[in-house]
């Protein structure tokens, strides 16, 4: 009987909790009482570019949203730099999926980026010139300063994605959570995002990125989390990103587990 496990590849030196960007213990999240992720636990060392990889429906977006408390967790604990998310919110930048908003909304790219500063500006106070200047800098960093005054529906998909990235950058956070920033973008945008990620890493920041394209994982990320309802494995890309682990992540769905989950839901309804 194979009882040998893949123990979590935790960093060799135990870090003090306030230096660990994200630590997740036993996180379970359910949508309509159907569990989407089960008992997920991991810790991320600082200053790493972390890719979250897994098949469709593996709960990748759910994981990121649960880390930020956007959706309620059924159980478990999440800490950002050793504190609950609510306490350290200012240190987190979030790049949502592009589809999550209505791009017909009457704002231009600069307005969207400025939104990243609203919290900092404070209640009831207007946006000032210096804030716009900072937003413009962020747009320059992602290389679309020329389009700052275009209404957002007139931006290409890649430009929209970069606008979202700029909105996160402008916050000057220490940890960035990105939900599929590479989905359906042009090569120039992909390059720009990778460049930004590298700059972030150099500045000692951490990024947690949901990623779809397995081929580019080793190139872009130095740390991966393999997710399929639960964490299959996590650790340095070189150690963890193995064909065997990928097989486990993408291959054979846990049919019985799903069946049981389904029964659980049905039973709860029909009781």
């Amino acid at each position, binding site marked *: 009987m194979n009882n040998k496990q893949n123990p979590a590849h935790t960093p060799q030196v135990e870090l003090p909790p306030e230096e660990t960007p994200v630590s997740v213990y036993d996180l379970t999240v359910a949508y309509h009482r159907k569990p989407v992720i089960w008992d997920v636990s991991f810790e991320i060392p600082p200053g790493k570019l972390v890719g979250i990889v897994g098949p469709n429906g593996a709960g990748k977006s759910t994981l990121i*949203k649960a880390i*930020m*408390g*956007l959706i309620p967790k059924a159980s478990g604990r999440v800490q950002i730099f050793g504190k609950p998310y*609510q306490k350290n*919110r200012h240190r*987190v930048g*979030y790049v*949502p999926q592009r589809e*999550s*908003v*209505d791009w017909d*909304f*009457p*704002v*231009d790219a600069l*307005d*969207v980026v400025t*939104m*990243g500063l*609203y*919290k900092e*500006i404070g*209640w*009831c106070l*207007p*946006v000032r010139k210096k804030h716009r200047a900072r937003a413009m800098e962020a747009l320059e960093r992602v290389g679309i300063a020329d389009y700052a005054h275009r*209404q957002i529906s007139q931006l*290409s998909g890649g430009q929209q994605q970069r606008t979202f990235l700029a*909105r996160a950058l402008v916050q000057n956070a220490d940890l960035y959570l990105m939900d599929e920033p590479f989905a359906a973008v*042009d*090569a*120039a945008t992909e390059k720009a995002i990778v460049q930004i990620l590298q700059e972030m890493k150099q500045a000692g920041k951490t990024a947690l990125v949901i990623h779809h394209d397995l081929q580019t994982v080793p190139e872009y990320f130095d740390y991966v989390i393999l997710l399929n309802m639960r964490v299959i494995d996590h650790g340095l890309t070189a150690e963890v990103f193995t064909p065997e682990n990928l097989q486990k992540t993408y291959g054979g769905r846990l049919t019985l587990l799903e069946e049981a989950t389904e029964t659980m839901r049905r039973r709860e309804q029909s009781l």
Partner: protein
Amino acid sequence: MKPFVLVFLFASFWPECLILAATETGTIQTQQSITDRSIAIPEWNDWKRVFLLKDYNTRIVVFGTTLLGMAAGMIGSFALLRKRALMGDALSHATLPGIAIAFIIATGLGLDGKTLPVLLAGAAVSGLLGVATILLIRNMTRLKEDAALGIVLSVFFGAGIALLGIVQQMKTGHAAGLESFIYGKTASMVASDAWLIGCAGLSCMLISLLLYKELTLLCFDEGFAVSRGFPVILLDMTLMGLVVVVTIIGLQAVGLILMISLLVIPPAAARFWTEKIVNMTVVAIILGALSGMIGSAMSAIFPNLPSGAMIVLVATAMFLFSMVFGIPRGILIRKLRRHELNRKVNRQHLLRGLYEFLEARGRLKEKQSSESTFVPLSKLLQMRSWSLAKLKKIVKRAQQEQLVVALQEDQLRLTKAGLLEATRIVHEHRLWELYLITYADVAPSKVDQDADAIEHVLEPEVIAELESLLVQQSTEGILQSPHTIEIHQEETKARHSSRRRST
């Protein structure tokens, strides 16, 4: 001042100018019978009285409805962008039972049940109860938002009607006063009412001004707002609360059935004039103010026109005008842009046709003036599904742009500029074809159509990217076509027409 505001101000005032002009000639009126309630054209003096606000009463009414329109325009902008336009509908219907109960209770306590603050307090309570019920149904049952709205709207309204039936029987209550809340009765507005509307409306505007960026963020990207720690639920409640307040202060002027229109129509119309939320709010405020002003003025002049309905119809007229003539989002300008694009597409097709014709016969390198570089129209006609008349029109336009010259009726030749342009177009087309074949796995036989559909809308940066992506293939300058170019075949025609059918 931004030009659109000026255009807009003019546009909204001109019907009045017309009416004013018309009345000067039409002042001689025959005596009317007393029972005739059809619209009479009033005397010039009546006009003057209303427009110079000589009447104390008119002054109050116009002041009140204008402020109401401004407040509704501002709050409505957020409600519209939050996609909650119909919430106002359900909510305003839901105020009726509250009004009736407030009247019954106030009368029971020996107070004057018809004072506006009492009735509006009742309206607010039952409006909020309506919102709570909608949220309860939407979140706790399997029914969707639309059903929740419909249920609350109709059941609350039914309860209100039943209660009005009782109010009518009360000794003190001529229910006529209450029924005016259903349709609105601006004329019954007194100074204190106008002050109430003014104060409440201005406070609503002030609150939404203070929360401007927070509300914008809420409407645009709720998830991001939560992740940044904004109290989204509280903000949402604030917005709904503002809608409730605006709705109930509008009850008296336009009535509960039409109140939603002041919240929806001016912002929806404003959206056609701008791509910036700040401008949209400003335009919506102006439009709302104008609807209130003009509508109530007209109803003051023509006593037979119900004020609420007139305010709405004025707003509708502005909406229609904006929808058609609005820049940059109106229908006309978009049609025009589409037309431009079609022209561009046709021109590009023509140039590409000429180029490919010459290329197939190896005459590209020949001197442009020589005989052999002429292309007969009939050959071009075979290449695309153009009618002769259309082709001639396209050619004529290309001639004006000095891209081609026509020798005789049916002989065409590219000019120098034309050849340059054609080379660029063909290059881009083939780049795109190559890209589709290499990266999108499109069969070479089909690639022409796909490239055709997209190439005209490519941005320069995408072209540059294509170039760099396909750098190996494109070193030769102008690309070879990845498929055989069908020039003579009738199939081309058949293929294009079949494509047209399928799209």
